Structures are given as structure tokens and as C-alpha cells.
């Protein structure tokens, strides 16, 4: 059996995300793995795909929060449109 009889590289690259998330049926998964076994370029591609996705996710987690004054601006906007929240109750008396 040749590699092309299993999947070609373009097909494998189309299925990558579904493969990583365990969303392809068993038979397809076996063919997919067999292709990877026989195809070093696709193995490297999969490794790069995984690594880069992790890079972007890490970048997202490290993103600076927006400036706090934007939250205050929004709260002020809402106060003018729907009224301010009542002042906190003074329970000390």
C-alpha cells in the first residue's frame, strides 16, 4: 500500500485540527497516523502546527488588559443612560 492510497498530504493537513481534537472516526484516524508514519514532511508540519497554536494561545493569555479608564468610561456612560447605582448602605448606625 502506498502513502497516496491512504491520504495525500493536502488531505492530512486539512484534517489536522479534527485529528488533534480527536474528532475523526477510528478508521480515518488509523489512516491518518499511517500517513504520518510514512511522511516526515507531514510529521514536521503537524509539530509546527501544534507549536504555533500554543504560541498564539500563550500570547493571548499574556495580553495586556485594556486600560482601566475604559471600564470607568463605560460605567459613566451607563450611569447617564440608565441611572447610577444606589450608594452603598451605611450599616454602622
Amino acid at each position, binding site marked *: 500500500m502506498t502513502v497516496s492510497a491512504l491520504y495525500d498530504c493536502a488531505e492530512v493537513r486539512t484534517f489536522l485540527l479534527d485529528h488533534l481534537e480527536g474528532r475523526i472516526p477510528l478508521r480515518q484516524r488509523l489512516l491518518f497516523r499511517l500517513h504520518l508514519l510514512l511522511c516526515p514532511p507531514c510529521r*514536521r508540519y503537524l509539530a509546527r502546527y501544534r*507549536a504555533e497554536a500554543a504560541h*498564539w*494561545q500563550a500570547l*493571548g493569555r499574556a495580553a495586556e488588559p*485594556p486600560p482601566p479608564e475604559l471600564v470607568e468610561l*463605560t460605567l459613566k456612560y451607563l450611569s447617564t443612560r440608565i441611572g447610577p447605582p444606589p450608594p452603598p448602605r451605611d450599616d454602622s448606625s
Partner: protein
Amino acid sequence: MAQDSNAELVRRVKAGDRAAFDELVRRCHGRLYRLARRLLGNVDDAQEVVQETFLAAYEGMARFGDRAAVTTWLYAIAYNKAVDRLKQRTADAWLITGELEEAEVWRRSATVHDLTDWRADPEQNLVREQLQGILDATLAQVPAVSRAVFELRDQQGLSSREAAEALGLSEGAVRVRLHRVRQLLMAEVRRLTDPDGGER
């Protein structure tokens, strides 16, 4: 004192607790702002969309059911408001809901994919600001819905199901768009950082 869950805040808002709504705003402002900024590309429009989103949410809170998470509902409002603004800017529907494969940047990336040996790891040599620059510049060239999918899935960590609910897409459509954007970014990182284009 333990922090109320979002569901508890919603219950308090529905019961007329105005301060609970401000707490919800503080909690959710950042993530909505990031989505709006990614879609609209500038601070002022993003901030206005976030303000309008919270106003609409407050006015519609009584109609909000218990089945969805309030954050997903807020994302959906913000996404629709941002898309409304984009429609005012352009009559080109592709810029909003088009297929990524029809983008010029995608066609260019196909060559990189064909020629690259993916053994090397260009990100190792890039600082965070460079990666962020490539990310921002690349996403600006893809349809808005693809930008939103990537922002929610790979930047804010939502699941495909949550992103699908927020954006009114099927889970399958979210995965296909996410996969395409990831592939595009692979090619763009390589093209912009490797003088040889990563050719074998």
C-alpha cells in the same frame, strides 16, 4: 467575601440590583473590548461597541434565559454590534463573512506552504512584540468572522462550542475557520521572518 458567580450576578440584576450590573461590567469589559478591537481595529469604535453592548444587555436582561452563559450572550451582542459597524463602513460582504481561501494573503501563503520545510522554529527567534505585530497584520487581512473565531478560540480560550454560540456559527464552521487562520499564520510567520521563505 466569596465572589458571586456570573449567574448569581445576573439573578441579582434581574431582581433590580443595579450595582450587580456594574460588577458584571467590570468583569466582562476586557474580553468584550478585545473582541471588538480585533473586529474594528481601533480603540474608539471598540469602546463605543462595548458601551452599546452593555446598555443593550441591561435593557434586555429580563429576556436573557438561563440556558446560555451570560458571557456568551454578551459576546454575541458585541459581535453583532461590531458587524453592524463594519457593514456601515463597507458594502463588500466578503470582508465580513467571506471565505478566507479567497483572500489575497491566503493565495500568497499557499506558495509558502508548498515550499517550506517546517523543521525550523522561527518563533524561537522572535520577541513577543514581533509575533503580536505579525498576528495583528495578518488578521487584518481576513474576513471579520475568521478574526472573531481566532480571537475567541486561540486568544481568549473559548471552546469551539462557546465560540459557535457567541458567533451564531456551527461548531464545524468554527473549527474550519480556526484551522485556516492557523495555517495562514504559519505561512505568514515563515514568509515574514525567513529571508528565503523557508524554501527547502
